[in-house]
């Protein structure tokens, strides 16, 4: 009984401690914000201290780009004196929601958000807006909410266009026979706004050639819904390719593949090799070191380089401008469904075997791989 009594005492004390803490913090807050929340735009004008806390919330760590971002963001923000925190939401949308809430609770003065799902963060962002925290949409556009202030992204139309063009180039250079060429098409995740733009822009290049018979899609799968890869998962794309090869290419040769990014491209290469076929010209995106090696070896035809460092730099510069109370520099606008978003568009570059070394020379990770043979 003594023991029990002691345990009870502990609980009472604990409860009292919590209560006290709650009471002191709770009281002041209501009074403080009685005046109502200020809209985000006006607060952005006012600026914030140069050692403020900046929150960075990024999606699942699925490719090298995100690994790079994880080290680049702290590096760049530290340089400017900002306290900062980068968090990845490997557990999905609900985890990202909770992380953004936590960043707001920690009194972040600006948020850089790379959303997992472009439309499922609205309530967290409205909380940010109500506390006057500016939000920068990073890499992927946050849609259907007014509570986002800027967008930093590589022009997705440009990426798709480069992919489409390079596929056509590759076919001519490598197919070894005149048209028609057999090609298969793959796209990114249907819930990623950019994936659709990549594909549509690529198709702007490819569709005329399909119409005039230069390109033939043996599987007949050309709509975005048909070619999309849920969650950008390479194994999903790989399975689809397995099925297509079995069903349509037992007699025919496959002359080229439109792949939306490097990880999917590698899945597709595996599938094609397993089927005992030559790997035809294959596009990509993201400059994954693995894929750079494949390009150097002549297996993958091309990738689209979107240097993470440029994207991080642009985002951090926006934060810096905001902290000084200035309006960040942008070079365009995007419609996110609710508002026109001031956007800093960055230009991607196409990488093939020819310019491989030249592009990555400076890169500590990719440089040695890219320039190994030259």
């Amino acid at each position, binding site marked *: 009984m003594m023991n029990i009594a002691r345990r009870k005492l502990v609980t009472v004390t604990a409860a009292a401690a919590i209560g006290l803490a709650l009471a002191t913090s709770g009281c002041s807050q209501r009074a403080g914000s009685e005046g109502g929340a200020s809209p985000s735009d006006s607060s952005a004008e006012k600026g914030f201290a140069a050692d403020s806390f900046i929150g960075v919330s990024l999606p699942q760590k699925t490719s090298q780009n995100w690994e790079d971002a994880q080290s680049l963001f702290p590096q760049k923000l530290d340089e400017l004196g900002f306290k900062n925190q980068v968090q990845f939401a490997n557990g999905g949308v609900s985890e990202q929601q909770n992380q953004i809430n936590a960043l707001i609770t920690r009194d972040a003065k600006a948020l850089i958000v790379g959303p997992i799902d472009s439309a499922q963060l609205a309530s967290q962002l409205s909380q940010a807006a109500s506390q006057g925290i500016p939000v920068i949409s990073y890499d992927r556009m946050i849609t259907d909410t007014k509570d986002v202030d800027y967008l930093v992204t590589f022009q997705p139309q440009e990426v798709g266009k480069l992919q489409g063009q390079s596929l056509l180039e590759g076919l001519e250079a490598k197919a070894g026979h005149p048209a028609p060429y057999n090609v298969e098409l793959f796209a990114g995740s*249907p819930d990623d706004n950019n994936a659709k733009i990549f594909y549509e822009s690529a198709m702007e290049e490819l569709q005329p050639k399909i119409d005039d018979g230069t390109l033939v899609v043996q599987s007949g799968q050309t709509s975005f819904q048909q070619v999309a890869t849920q969650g950008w998962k390479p194994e999903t794309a790989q399975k689809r390719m397995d099925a297509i090869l079995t069903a349509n290419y037992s007699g025919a040769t496959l002359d080229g593949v439109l792949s939306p990014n490097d990880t999917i491209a590698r899945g597709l290469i595996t599938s094609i090799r397993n089927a005992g076929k030559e790997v035809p010209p294959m596009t990509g995106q993201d400059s994954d070191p693995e894929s750079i090696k494949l390009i150097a070896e002549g297996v993958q035809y091309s990738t689209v380089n979107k240097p993470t460092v440029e994207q991080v730099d642009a985002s951090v510069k926006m934060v810096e401008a905001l902290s000084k109370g200035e309006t960040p520099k942008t070079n365009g606008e995007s419609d996110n469904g609710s508002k026109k978003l001031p956007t800093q568009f960055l230009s991607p570059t196409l990488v093939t075997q020819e310019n491989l070394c030249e592009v990555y020379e400076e890169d500590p990770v990719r440089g040695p791989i890219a320039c190994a043979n030259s």
Partner: protein
Amino acid sequence: MGSLLSRNLRQFGMVIALAALLVFFQVRTGVALTPGNISNIIQGNAYVLILAVGMVLIIIAGHIDLSVGSVAAFVGVTVALLTQSGVPWALAVLIGLVVGIGVGAWQGFWVAAVGIPAFIVTLAGMLLFRGLNQVLGKSQTIPVPDGIIYLGTASVPEVGPNTGFNNITVLLGLLGVAALIFFEVRKRRNATRLGAPIGPVWASVLKVVLIGGVILLATYLFATAPIGRSFPIPGLILIVLVIVYAFVMARTPLGRHIYAVGGNRAAAQLTGVNVRRVNFFVLTNMGFLSAIAAIVFVGRSTSSGAYDGQGWELDAIAAVFIGGAAVSGGIGTVIASVIGGLVIAVLNNGLQLLGVQNDITQVIKGLVLLLAVALDVYNKKQGKPSIIGLVQRGMRRSAGTGETGVVDTTQPAQPAAEAPVDTSSSRQ
């Protein structure tokens, strides 16, 4: 309600752990106990806690449900599509609940009537309803209207005169304390009338003061929070569900029957329990609660998406087991499961506030789950009953020997020696 709370807080240790975690994170971050953060914890985890309420019933009955995430995703997309096609949001929510019940009944049918293990039925359901979610939603994000967003994100509204407090929160808190006192008094009066032993008055007073104190503190906290940040609506939904289900499990024949089926199915059948009906009920009910979780979640996310609900089943199951339920069924309580879920939620939130990376957080969560259950197993092996059990038994004993001569102290019970040996006998 009060009696329910104390009766069910078997995992008293978990309550202490929860309080300790909160205090620890408050000390380390300085913001863990702000009303805003508490709101975040409740809103960000309400869906898991709601699922845990249904999951513990399933686990007590000796089953498992792997489909809850997919069912929630399916209901979510259904509701979103309905509102998109012009159905008023309230009606869409209602239809969503009916769809949830329907899905639950579908799974209940296979388990209860056909006799397929719930593990398999719900594994099938997990694939089935995930697929349907993606077919219906075309794997895209579908926005929901403000009414549903309100359910997922809003706080108790500001009503009435400006008292400097959130009036509804104050009212609810006071009602809670009043109910606590009322039920405690009624319980004592009832026991006295029937001649059952009652604990000493100080124990009742202590209980009312402790639980009432916690309620009042929470009330004060949320009533003084900034406008629009007082007690969250999903939290209110959760509290109502916890009270209803804790009551059903502790105080109604249905609850007893669920425990009986999980504890010993054959014996339950020969005691007059309709085992099929119980199995059908727990699964149907899970569908219903999955639907509620879905609505709260799409509200919070302002839209339904293709990945909604992924991994939720595991979160809910983890909460239930941290709350002390047994894998073999028959053991567990609603409140302990919600506390188990809160432990994980607070841990998650605290680690995020500390800026611990997601990968490390997962490692810590895994260890916590293992440790909590290991501790429980160790305690059971030692033959130690729960602390609350000890307190209550102690009270009744002291009352009993004095007033009614309840205890036959001259005859020691069967030596405990033989008891621990057959811990696993005759479990089906």
